[in-house]
């Protein structure tokens, strides 16, 4: 399952990434394999999304969220 498929309020744990370049940037921001993610909300127009990860809030576009595979 991809992160982009989660609804607001749902949670998941990061398993792996489908895009190497994006994964480097995401990991720098604390999105690591094994880290749990909560989808807090979507932007009013449905994209991007806001998640809580590593104790803070991060926003990312759906396209970027779709490169994160959850356990």
């Amino acid at each position, binding site marked *: 399952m991809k992160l982009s498929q989660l609804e607001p309020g749902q949670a998941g744990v990061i398993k792996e990434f489908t895009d*190497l*370049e994006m994964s*480097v940037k995401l*990991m720098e921001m604390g999105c690591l*394999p094994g880290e749990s993610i909560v989808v807090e909300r979507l932007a009013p127009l449905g*994209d991007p999304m806001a998640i809580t990860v590593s104790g803070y809030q991060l*926003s990312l*576009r759906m396209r*970027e969220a779709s490169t994160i595979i959850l356990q």
Partner: protein
Amino acid sequence: MNGDLKVALIGNPNSGKSTLFNVLTGLNQKIGNFPGVTVDKKTGYSKLPDQRSAQIIDFPGTYSLYPKSKDELIVVEALAHKKSPVHPDLIVFVADASNLKRNLLLYTQVADLKIPIIIALNMMDLAKRSGIEISVDALSKKLGVPVVPISARKQEGIEQLKEAISYAGKIPLQNDCIEVEALAPELVQKIRSELQVDLPYVALQLAHQHESLSFLDPHESDRVEEIEQEFSFHSQKVQAAETIARYHFINEVLFDTVKIKTGAKQESHSNQIDKILTHKVFGFLIFFAILFFIFQSIFSWSEYPMSLIEQLFVWMGNTAHQFLPAGVLTDLLVDGILAGLSGVLVFIPQIAILFAFLSILEDTGYMSRVTFMFDKIMRKVGLSGKSIIPMIGGFACAVPSIMSTRNIENWKDRMITIMVTPLIACSARLPIYTLLISLVVPANKVWGFISLQGLALMAMYVLSIVSAIVVAWVMKHILKARERGYFIMELPVYRMPRWNNVLLTMYEKVKTFVLQAGKVIIAVSVVLWVLASYGPPGRFERIEKQYQSTEYIQKYTSHELDQLTASAKLENSFAGVLGKSIEPVIKPLGFDWKIGIALVTSFAAREVFVGTMATLYSVDGDDSDMTSVRAKMQNIRNAETGELVFTPAVAFSLMIFYAFAMQCMSTVATVFRETKHWKWPTIQFVYMSGLAYLFSLLVYHLLK
């Protein structure tokens, strides 16, 4: 003053680094550039308890040593290169205690560059409130460096931090964070021996970033490239492995030094605010309400100081004329330099107010929510969520707005934003629009309440938005992206704005504007003054003779004569000659040579148009008195054909021209400063002038 000790402030964005910088240095700071690049470098001095003085350098905030923008590259360039003029003796690493894990990633990278380092653990109060307990001594022992808990906003722990700075030795004490060699053993070994690099992590950084680091010469960079190919080094894979290794280390460090109680209060507090501020309906409503308030303030609050500045310069001009001997030098001083200076300084209130609001929105964390809400719409036309703020600011003035595009990391997004912002109807266009609309649009009301004139003005504003969006969309397809666009952005928790920070931002932006754009504007004003006050030899003498002849003296009062002389002189000046010589070009747009003169004189600043019209038609009173200009212009007829000059076709054609044309030297100068290349202002000038001509032509012929 050079300081006994060079201290670099390094940390994540939103870690409170700038607040700490302000607290450490007070107002004792200055902004310059980092060597060779255009990134703002803030330096200041701080007195240490042992009476030594420390030079504090504020580096751009970054999440990692692998830069996402040009600003961030400076961090690795300064820290990895020992001979860099900004290479520090000591690093104060500012870490957000409420978000330690992600903050420590950059710490472990910086620590491996083996420069003496101290951790300033900021926002301890915030961490405590969200149930995070940090054992400072254990953390310090595990990392091998001094850790000083502080709260920069409340100015707590600052003395202890200064003490730690003064005690810091010259030898780095930090423990190794990861085994760098293990990531690419042979490659690191070979780079170290061939390029004489001591540190394994510097060698690895060279491998990753040799193409962008300015301190490597081309020969060295090529050699690194060869070594990479020899060992088939895959930069992104190694970087991913490094990041994972570093987080392993961090997890081990944090495992028994940080305790998190569940039910974090601060976070949910911020979440609740977000539920309203980024709500589907209220989110947009609140945003537009804030916007409305900002515009009202920019117009109403700046009105008084602006007229004060203008009056001051009028007074200075009059005084100068009174006390200085009449002559060319006095005229140059008053009508060239003082007028130019007034044109620069009059923008200060608007710039100050706009930046005060922007800095409050940024400081509270609201700005990143605006970006979050608008990203999807903006992306469709080739912009990013971060473009919304500069474009809205464009309604006030393009100059500060273009200055505020700096926080757009993506190069293409930023360039497009800079290119289209001057299309937005700025406040300098307002006097032109109101004058021309009142000339040709009847003051009737439709259905009793919709004013036709108001409707026409609104149409001009809507046109500006539409044109900006269309041009952005076109540029999206022309400009080549330098990097893949992405939008991974921290949403910081809501906080109260720091008022002294707001004041400092205002002061800095105003200073930058006056010093940078001011030079160009004054230079151009002086040139325009020369063009408008001198003419081909002999012409001015003839005019003076003509109007001093008895025939005129009997017919007119001396005041009227002065006006007639001024008008005739302008007509025969170089600007007038220029206006006449461009007449064939502008005739298809419906403009005569007098409008041509106004186009020439308002080349540096649009608002000059009204003033020039006043001079040209010898109107009594000062430039800002629009009713008299309007009355005069309404009845002007073409000397040859006897037709009215300002027909609706001409007036609308002229408005369209001003809507598109880049008649603003301050903007050109700012775009040059922000892009550091004449290419961009040139392209902008050409495309905007082209559109102006094309659409004026179209409108004139449709309405004629």
